[in-house]
């Protein structure tokens, strides 16, 4: 199978998506309201990414270990724990649960 074409297509398409945002912005001036909605949209995208990557794998529920680690992260973040503590606690919770045989 030709391996070059799919990689080139993915690289070009991804670059087009990446350039589209900055390109759009040079063509418009943003009202404070649009700026606020943009910030809200970024939060929405990230929370949706977090929720789907924590809960869903291959169109099914992701089990217990992964959501548990992410829940620990969310709780610590809400309690304003340091960034490093949040990330390490999430990975260790999920890792240790798997070590104990919890998927």
């Amino acid at each position, binding site marked *: 199978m*030709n391996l070059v074409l*799919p*990689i080139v*297509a*993915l*690289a070009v*398409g*991804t670059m087009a*998506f*990446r*350039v*589209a*945002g*900055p390109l*759009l*912005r040079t063509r418009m001036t*943003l009202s404070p*309201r649009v*700026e*606020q*909605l*943009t*910030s*809200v*949209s*970024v*939060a*929405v*995208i*990230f*929370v*949706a*990414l*977090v*929720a*789907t*990557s*924590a*809960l869903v794998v291959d169109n099914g529920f992701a089990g217990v*270990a*992964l959501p548990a*680690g*992410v829940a620990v*992260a*969310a709780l*610590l*973040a*809400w309690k304003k724990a*340091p*960034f*490093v503590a949040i*990330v390490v606690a*999430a*990975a*260790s*919770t*999920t*890792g*240790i649960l*798997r070590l104990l045989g919890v998927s």
Partner: protein
Amino acid sequence: MRSILRTPPSSPSRDIALVCLADGLVGASFGAIAVSAGLPIWVPVAMSVFVFAGAAQFILVGVLAAGGNPLAAVASALLVNTRLVPLGFSISDTFDGTSWPRKLLGSHLITDEAVAFTAMESERTRRRAAFWLCGIGLFVAWNTGVLIGAFLGGQITDTAALGLDAAFPAVLIALIMPALRDALTRNAALIGAAIAVAAALVLPPGLPVLLALLGVIPAYVATKVNA
């Protein structure tokens, strides 16, 4: 752009370094998986330099290694990357006044993590510093990881055992939590997440996150009333 995030972390560069380390390890597993699946070493290496988008790379390599339909694989990988359009829009103020070559280079460095670290900052020079530091740091870490993984091959096994798949959502939730203290943002995010999770059970990756943007509509209406 004025950010709604108001509490910058004590040391962004240390936090960025941790994210680079975690992503480097995931990169190593990507390189190892690609090579152990029988793909030539240049495939994961070239993909990491020119695509530089982890989830999309895993999708394409998975299908190529399994001998699946490359056209469908590229389409699903691109679908996952559509979120880069709104994310790029949100950080493009950091490119204001820079040359086009630099804008293109910066655009290539747009990732979830770089956007999240930029969104943490409200002041312009700090936003710019966060974006470039995270962008360049991740590019170096990811590609170094992929190279190491590709050459060590089977030595590196599943990063799931280390819980690294929990690290990525943890990074994002840690960076976005200050924004969620604003009720308008939090409600939009909760509606969006509910839509995304329901959609993820039936739709391919990428679409659920786009559909989540419907959660912005109440905020849109609310700000119109206030304005």
